[in-house]
């Protein structure tokens, strides 16, 4: 699919409350390019709650239902049933952050196990950003946040692999650094029935501490140093084109280059970075093994 063939219809209207360089805005604007106007967005508490607009002005040219923090996938279940029963052609799309997938973990799990008809996108900026940068389940190892001022001590959960182990109908990781890949994955997801999940990596300029112009660069850097792995599962497990070169550790760009350009990692020592690199190596082992298992 060529970039020039993408729909120019604007589903995210200019002049939103999103920060300069906001990754959610990048993700949201591309939803329509993949799904047309046949979707409904379900938004739990998070930055997107605000980006959606206020008073009588919505930034969205598609239907959007604001819902309580932990409830989104379950609400989508109900909406999906309504569309089916009333003969309405459309997909409920849950758009939530890593916050929503912490507090709503059971909700996410339940909808997945039931194979309820929806696409869930977790736009992951690796912290509870809307409340001011607090540590979440997916916050990167050792990252500084307001609740982990000396760097995160806890482990980092892999949402997409968890959904894969639920036997979801479609699971993928994506990045706002590679929007065409995201759009293709959305398109593929929209053609499959059941529970579809996309984990979208969303570097946040104020939250991570980099200039608003660097959002796409930082996102791509995460992929190029191997820290964020792009893959897709629809029965077969495929490592995506942009991540393929980095199966080979020698081709990965230095992790320090990715980490040190973000203020949230300035405090890291060389040992810290080495430890993180070991974790990334372990992650790759799992991904490569899955590629073999589901080939």
């Amino acid at each position, binding site marked *: 699919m060529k970039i020039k063939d993408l729909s120019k219809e604007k589903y995210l*209207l200019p002049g939103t409350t999103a920060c*300069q*360089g*906001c990754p959610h805005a990048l993700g949201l604007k591309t939803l329509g390019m993949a799904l047309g106007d046949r979707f409904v967005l379900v938004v739990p508490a998070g930055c997107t709650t605000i980006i959606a607009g206020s008073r009588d002005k919505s*930034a969205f040219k598609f239907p959007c239902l604001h819902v309580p923090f932990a409830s989104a996938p379950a609400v989508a279940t109900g909406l999906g049933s309504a569309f089916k029963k009333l003969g309405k052609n459309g997909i409920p799309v849950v758009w939530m952050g890593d916050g929503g997938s912490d507090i709503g973990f059971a909700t996410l799990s339940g909808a997945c196990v039931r194979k309820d008809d929806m696409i869930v996108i977790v736009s992951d900026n690796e912290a509870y950003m809307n409340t001011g940068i607090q540590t979440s389940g997916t916050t990167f190892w050792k990252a500084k946040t307001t609740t982990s001022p000396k760097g995160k001590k806890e482990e980092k959960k892999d949402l997409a692999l968890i959904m894969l182990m639920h036997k979801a109908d479609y699971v993928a990781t994506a990045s706002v650094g590679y929007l065409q890949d995201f759009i293709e994955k959305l398109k593929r997801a929209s053609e499959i029935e059941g529970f579809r999940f996309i984990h979208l990596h969303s570097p946040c300029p104020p939250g991570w501490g980099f200039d608003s112009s660097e*959002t*796409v660069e930082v996102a791509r850097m995460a992929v190029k140093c191997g820290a964020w792995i792009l893959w897709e599962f629809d029965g077969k497990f495929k490592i995506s084109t942009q991540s393929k070169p980095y199966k080979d550790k020698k081709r990965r760009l230095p992790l320090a280059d990715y980490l040190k350009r973000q203020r949230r990692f300035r405090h890291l020592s060389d040992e810290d970075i080495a430890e993180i690199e070991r974790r990334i190596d372990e992650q790759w082992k799992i991904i490569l093994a899955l590629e073999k298992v589901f080939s």
Partner: protein
Amino acid sequence: MECMIAKPSKGSAGKTGLWRTFKPVYDVEKCNLCHLCWLYCPENAIDVLEDRIVIDYDYCKGCGICAKICAKKAIEMVREEET
């Protein structure tokens, strides 16, 4: 109940062009219409016409992503004038 319902509106946060410190300045001569700036503008403030792009300065927040992503360096971030 009506006060809980919002409709699609451009400028839901007002004229966000006022947020800018730096402004993208476009040189059509260098542009090859690759569409990357259009795709990667988080504000949807860039439109691609037949022979050039147009930036909507009413809403452009000056984030600078377009300048960084342009392979032809057709966009340059320039400090806004003091008014």
